[in-house]
């Protein structure tokens, strides 16, 4: 029985292994200090993983919903996506023509997760996302580089960056693009960010979702940018479909990782 399961698991891994590795970048793991560390232990270990070089686009997502009718906007289960889900689409099968090469947004966590699973991938964890996002074009960890940090904050100030075309920005150290300055991105365990019990009481407009007042105590500019991301994540619910929130997928970097459970 055990052998059979292993065999099946192995088969799965092989069939998934061929999946678009050229569209993913290998991120070598390491230790990093998350903005909100866990207890006395401040460093978190991140293992090797693959991350999509680009956010998922409208074109990608259109292909997905064409093959998976239960994620089309008129069919989607309301439990898994709020009323804004794909609300800017022309119909079930057609994304807005001018947005095909833009990052897909107005997609709930459940839908993003299903998309990644159908590619043999998964959503990145918060730690993985933050780890990959601290790389500048030349360094793995640029959090001490004030120019890099200011450029991230500047990018957060620009309006309507979700209308940008993917893949035009410079790739970071790992070869990943558009992590900053485009859209917020879903993470697998966004609901592990616990800032306040009050987040559910915020207004439900996109703008009401993050409140910078909590950044009091953040130590430097980089923390401020990270704080904005953490505050945004903590205010999300999994059925939210927001104009400024997209996603990309990740994958474990070694089959051995996929077979071990903590």
């Amino acid at each position, binding site marked *: 029985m055990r052998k059979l399961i292993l065999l099946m698991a192995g088969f799965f891994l092989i069939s998934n292994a061929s999946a678009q590795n050229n569209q993913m970048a290998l991120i070598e793991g390491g230790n990093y200090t998350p903005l909100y560390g*866990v207890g006395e232990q401040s460093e978190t270990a991140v293992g090797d993983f693959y991350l999509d070089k680009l956010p998922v686009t409208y074109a990608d997502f259109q292909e997905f919903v064409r093959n*998976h009718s239960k994620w089309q906007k008129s069919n989607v*289960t309301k439990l898994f996506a709020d009323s804004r889900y794909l609300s800017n689409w022309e119909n079930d099968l057609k994304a807005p023509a001018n947005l095909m090469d833009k990052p897909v947004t107005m997609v709930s966590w459940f839908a993003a997760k299903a998309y990644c699973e*159908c590619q043999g991938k998964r959503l990145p964890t918060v730690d993985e996302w933050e780890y990959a996002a601290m790389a500048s074009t030349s360094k793995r960890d640029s959090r001490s580089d004030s120019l890099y940090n200011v450029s991230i904050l500047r990018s957060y100030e620009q309006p309507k960056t979700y209308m940008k075309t993917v893949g035009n920005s410079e790739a970071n150290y790992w070869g990943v693009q558009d992590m900053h300055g485009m859209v917020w991105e879903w993470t697998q365990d966004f609901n592990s960010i*616990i800032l306040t019990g009050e987040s559910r009481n915020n207004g439900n407009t996109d703008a009401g979702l993050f409140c910078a007042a909590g950044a009091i105590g953040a130590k430097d500019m980089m923390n401020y940018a990270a704080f904005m991301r953490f505050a945004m994540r903590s205010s999300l619910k999994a059925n939210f479909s927001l104009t400024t929130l997209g996603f990309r997928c990740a994958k474990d970097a070694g089959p051995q990782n996929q077979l071990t459970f903590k």
Partner: protein
Amino acid sequence: MRYFSLILLSFFLFSCQENTQIEQSENMEETMDDLSIYQLPSEWNTQDGQTIEFKDLKGKPLVVVMIYTACRTACPRLVADMRMIEERVSSKKMKDVQYVMVSIDPINDTPEKLKQFAKDNQMEGPEWLFLQGTEDGVRDFANIMAVKYKQINPIDFSHSNIISVFDRQGVMKYQKEGLGLVNEEIVNKIVAVAKN
């Protein structure tokens, strides 16, 4: 080993089996509210070692809370709150309410541990249900209820203390956040839901 197969199973359930999924949703359409948690495809082990899905609970009002059995801080109080709520609700002759404790620690909280926990807390009647899921199933379920949780060391989790009330169709009707907040409001909500 059992857990391993569960994970594999959930992998298959969640992966791209378009056709079976569609058939399922078509069958359910007439009977199921679009916001019902009975649409969750995940499987769970009970404290008695049975495997169930949420749709097996159809027809009963549910009062749901997420806990883990190794918890020494908030959970004992949440459990106490649940017991008080159960007492008050059943004193109003509402007998078929199901109280569900979902573990956020599916690796450690085996059916045996859950059973022991139920025993230790005098929650052994049929109105109490303890559930072990998969990590994926637990995260999905927590996200339906907007419960936040994070593993902070091999034993402990921090998590939001939220009691959720679902009606007989599995639609969430009420949530109460915080500890020691047993008051007439949540009892009345449960009774109102149970009367429908």
